[in-house]
């Protein structure tokens, strides 16, 4: 029985989807060396470059955010699998510059191991590169040590923030500082209603009973531990906002960004309904929301569910969010 997916040979998924991206957004991105997505028109080499790495199968992330105002390059692995260290090193060599490079790594075992090796090798070669690791998933508890928190879709607004800072000509130290500060003030919590099919091997991931949902589900269907009977949208929003507020520390008078990232089959209708309640809860606490987003940024194939991302914003973060952006999937 074939999978219910529009694909060709499962071995070529990543190659073909990247070719599609480059054809569809030809004015914005191109592919070099098969698995490295870069801007169609490179950024001034006097400015800090932003590079990231990660598996495919999460489209539009990560490569859909390469372009003016966000990433300079995304190094792509295979479906749900980090690229090997040599590819990451190749990308770092490509963007070697005096202004320096920021490498953004989501905290997942494979990504961290490839990034660490590439960073060691790059530094040996005299490449000026600093790493920002995102680990904002609070599903294991707000107090979990950083090393044990996964990096979820919070990387996307981070790309926007440091991308804008780099574009504005800030120094490597400044870009890293603004990014680290943003990173510490954001938190993500995911929830799933259904599993999904791995597009390469056809296996099902994270099957859930008909009447259950799971709070804390990871980005590849890894279990999160918070199984519960299906809640309403409002109840779900309440259950998620409380720990997110605790984790980010937003309080009355603060400005914040709220994003709902659909992970696959969950409709925009549902995301908007959830956003509504979450925004009302934040408003009742006196938190001021900037213009937010409901959409698919980083998906988990067709898994029904979403990630709620709350970011406490300092004035410079809010400024960076508004800056010009021209990427396939984030334009401002």
């Amino acid at each position, binding site marked *: 029985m074939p999978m219910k997916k529009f694909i060709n040979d499962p071995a070529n998924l990543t190659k073909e989807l990247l070719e599609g991206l480059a054809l569809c957004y030809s004015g914005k991105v191109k592919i070099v060396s098969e698995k490295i997505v870069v801007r169609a028109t490179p950024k001034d080499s006097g400015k800090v470059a932003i590079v990231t790495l990660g598996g495919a199968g999460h489209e539009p992330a990560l490569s859909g955010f390469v372009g003016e105002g966000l990433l300079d390059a995304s190094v792509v692995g295979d479906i749900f699998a980090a690229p090997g260290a040599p590819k990451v090193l190749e990308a770092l060599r490509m963007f070697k510059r005096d202004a320096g490079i920021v490498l953004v790594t989501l905290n997942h075992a494979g990504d961290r191991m*490839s990034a660490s090796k590439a960073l060691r090798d790059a530094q040996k070669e005299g490449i000026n590169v600093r790493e920002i690791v995102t680990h904002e998933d609070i599903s294991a508890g707000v107090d979990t040590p950083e090393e044990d928190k996964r990096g979820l879709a919070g990387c996307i607004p981070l790309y926007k923030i440091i991308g804008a800072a780099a574009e504005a000509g800030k120094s490597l130290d400044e870009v890293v500082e603004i990014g680290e500060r943003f990173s510490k003030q954001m938190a993500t919590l995911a929830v799933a209603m259904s599993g999904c099919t791995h597009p390469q*091997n056809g296996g099902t991931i994270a099957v859930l009973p008909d009447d259950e949902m799971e709070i804390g589900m990871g980005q590849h269907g890894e279990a999160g531990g918070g199984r519960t009977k299906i809640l309403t949208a409002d109840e779900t929003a309440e259950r998620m906002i409380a720990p997110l507020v605790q984790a980010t520390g937003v309080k009355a008078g603060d400005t914040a960004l709220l994003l709902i990232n659909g992970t696959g089959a969950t409709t925009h209708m549902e995301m908007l309904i959830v956003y509504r309640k979450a925004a009302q809860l934040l408003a009742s606490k006196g938190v001021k929301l900037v213009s937010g987003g409901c959409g698919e940024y980083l998906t988990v194939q067709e898994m029904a569910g979403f990630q709620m991302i709350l970011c406490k914003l300092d004035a410079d973060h809010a400024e960076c969010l508004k800056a010009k952006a021209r990427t396939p999937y984030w334009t401002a």
Partner: protein
Amino acid sequence: MLSLSQFKTMVAAAGVDIRAGEKRFSELDAASGGDGDHGTAIVTAFNAMAKAGGDDFKSYLKALSDALQNEACGSTSALYGAWLQGMSDAAPEGAAELDAAALAKVFGGGLEELGFTTRARVGDKTLMDALIPATEALVSAQGGGIGAMFRQAAEAAEKGAEATCAMRAKFGRAKNLGDRSVGPRDAGAASMACIFAAFAKTVK
């Protein structure tokens, strides 16, 4: 003495068994709360390694590590890449044959390098649960000759893999699962045990 061509045959034999187990390794990954792709990843790794060549252990092992890191993705790329790199580093310059002591040094070097890449140790429900006891058994069995070294390593790897059933995952994608990861064998430990079993049956 273990000749390079014998060792290449062992790697090829491991590839055959790994391919036969592909579906099971993915299912084990999914069953313990991972992303259900370890079979895909380890088969990709062996397909990449099949392209590696080399006239002595050091360069062949280095070629295996490079091919794998270039073509395989995910944790497997980094973990196996480090393991094979460490073996190559520990292999004597230019040797196309290894005696028991050199072989023990090669496997010891692999484990040591891997230990820099991951903090996982025995009990964390990862491939380390198979590899650490396998390496220790291989080193201790030096006196019994090469055949015995791989036989005892395979036995230890199998026992280590079996022990992962009762463990909770602490590393990798399954770590947030807590108690729900208890039950199935760790996928990476299972494939590692499969590799040592193939080595043992092929070496004799």
